[in-house]
């Protein structure tokens, strides 16, 4: 929490102060509450990471909203909401694996093992495919919020809250895997937006995001960005700034440009800002946070004196508070041609909105120039009567061209196929 305590601290506190302040708009300085034990001022600052920064003080509807925690126990296979999930005609959904509590990010190994990260548990799990049978086993535990997993050349990379580690030759040692070796830990330790998605780019570098340490804060140089590092942890470089919190990205197979989802701030209103789909066209680009939201709204707190034209606008808006997380380009040949090089994108679903949005997968099709042509639903049904029966987190294309989807609400992974399939899972 101390990492942004130097110069921007006073500004940051001022922002939090004004965010919390509704009664006395004329107040100009963030009065520090005296330490003498006097009754606290009504609008003293919320902590920088508080999910409540910016929440309107006098709204009953707003007071009903709070971050939603998933159940800690995985849903039994026969209780999964499979029957409620809808896909376009010709597509099929099956349960690929169950019993993986808080299943989050996905990565596939060279030999067909699927690795699953977790945000709330201390474990990384492997879905092992061997001799036509599928089994689930924990391959690393005692980790702190190991949300991110990536795989390259036999090595599994794991991103915890504040460090990245690797396990070499993991698929040869699934029964007795060695402890992960830390390769990079020059990272802040903030809980807020501290969990990480990671992926390895066509440049053979590992991409590691560092979110803003709170809902809406003026962050320092160590936050609000995407970095890349060499696979041994060396050579860290910031490649995107003004990123509030990205939990999913992938590279356009044609242009090799990085596209990433970014979650918009909470509490500004029910309908804006929307989550963003962004594209990096040059190293070091600034995507606006916390000054400019969704490419066309200057932030009510931090946007004074700023102009959205100074920042890179998103290529698509993904819905207010929708929690757009995992996304991958579809490069397989199982799906119809119209899916080739389209983005399949998971919206975990909103908490900061009275009428929930998300809880689905979208298919985002691009024009030749990389701009967005269309966005439409792909997998729906996780949201029922304004409640979640599941929440999709990450998507992953397997080598056979099918798509996996993780669900951290039920602790399950689903597989989407097209056409008549021999269903190996045997539901």
């Amino acid at each position, binding site marked *: 929490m101390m990492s942004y305590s130097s110069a921007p601290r006073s500004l940051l506190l001022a922002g939090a102060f004004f965010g919390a302040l509704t009664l006395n708009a004329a107040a100009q300085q963030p009065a520090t509450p005296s330490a003498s034990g006097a009754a606290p001022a009504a*609008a003293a600052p919320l902590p920088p990471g508080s999910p409540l920064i910016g929440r309107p003080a006098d709204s009953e509807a707003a007071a009903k909203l709070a971050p939603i925690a998933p*159940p800690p*126990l995985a849903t039994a296979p026969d209780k999964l909401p499979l029957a409620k999930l809808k896909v376009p005609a010709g597509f099929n959904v099956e349960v690929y694996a169950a019993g993986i509590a808080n299943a989050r990010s996905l990565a596939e190994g060279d030999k067909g093992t699927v690795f699953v990260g977790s945000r*709330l548990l201390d474990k990384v799990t492997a879905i092992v495919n061997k001799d036509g049978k599928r089994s689930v086993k924990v391959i690393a535990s005692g980790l*702190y919020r190991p949300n991110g997993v990536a795989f390259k050349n036999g090595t599994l990379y794991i991103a915890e809250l504040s460090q990245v580690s690797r396990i070499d030759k993991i698929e040869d040692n699934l029964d007795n895997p060695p402890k992960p070796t830390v390769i990079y830990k020059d990272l802040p330790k*903030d*809980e807020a937006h501290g969990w990480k998605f990671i992926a390895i780019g066509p440049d053979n570098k590992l991409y590691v995001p560092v979110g803003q340490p709170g809902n809406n804060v003026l962050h320092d140089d160590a936050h609000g960005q995407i970095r890349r590092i060499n696979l041994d942890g060396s050579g860290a470089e910031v490649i995107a700034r003004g990123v509030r919190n990205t939990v999913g990205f992938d590279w356009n197979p044609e242009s090799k440009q990085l596209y990433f989802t970014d979650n918009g701030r909470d509490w500004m209103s029910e309908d804006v800002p929307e989550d963003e789909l962004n594209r990096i066209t040059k190293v070091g680009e600034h995507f606006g946070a916390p000054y400019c939201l969704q490419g066309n709204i200057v932030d009510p707190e931090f946007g004074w004196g700023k102009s959205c034209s100074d920042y890179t606008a998103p290529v698509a808006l993904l819905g207010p508070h929708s929690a757009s997380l995992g996304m991958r380009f579809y490069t397989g040949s199982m799906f119809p041609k119209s899916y080739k090089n389209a983005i399949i994108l998971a919206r975990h679903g909103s908490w900061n909105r009275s009428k929930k949005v998300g809880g689905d997968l979208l298919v985002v099709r691009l024009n030749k120039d990389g701009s967005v042509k269309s966005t439409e639903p792909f997998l729906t049904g996780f949201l029922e009567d304004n409640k979640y029966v599941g929440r999709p987190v990450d998507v992953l294309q397997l080598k056979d061209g099918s798509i996996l989807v993780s669900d951290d609400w039920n602790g399950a992974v689903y597989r989407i196929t097209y056409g008549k399939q021999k269903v190996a899972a045997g539901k």
Partner: protein
Amino acid sequence: MRKTIAALALTLIACPANAETFQERLAPCLACHGEKGQSETENTPSLGAQQAPYALIQLFMFREKLRVFEPMNEMTKALTDDDLRTFSDFIATMPKPVPPAEAGDPARMQRGEALGRQHRCNSCHNPDYSGKENVPRIANQREDYLAKTLGEYKDNSRHGYDGSMADVMAPVTPAQIADLAYFIARVR
């Protein structure tokens, strides 16, 4: 509804697979946490009317040692997922703890109440501090346990299920923790 669940729980657990009846399995819990939802044991929380989803999360975290407290890690280590659900559902049916008879020092109550609003405790935990879903009931919890827990969240020695409380507690001073615990233990 809750009575039904409790009754169901009793019958399920009393089946032959378990040598002990549910009441027998429950006895060691109640010995420390109190027979009627109200703990008489130092630093040990009252469980009465606790939100079942929160109770389930905590029992799970004890079993997985994501929350470290040896007696509870020991008590939960052999529990199945169904056990965790049964116990957390039962906990929710116990009577809620009652506030102390005397109203409390008005000045401290006022300070605590203001802090509860200032830090938005009364948002996620509800205006009456009864909690909701994964957010615990804290109204009339033991003062010593409240103060201890808030301190542990502040220094992140107790990892939450998610990070919310670590962030919320960062700017709260020890004196303010004392006032908050005093107030929440006595809130009416």
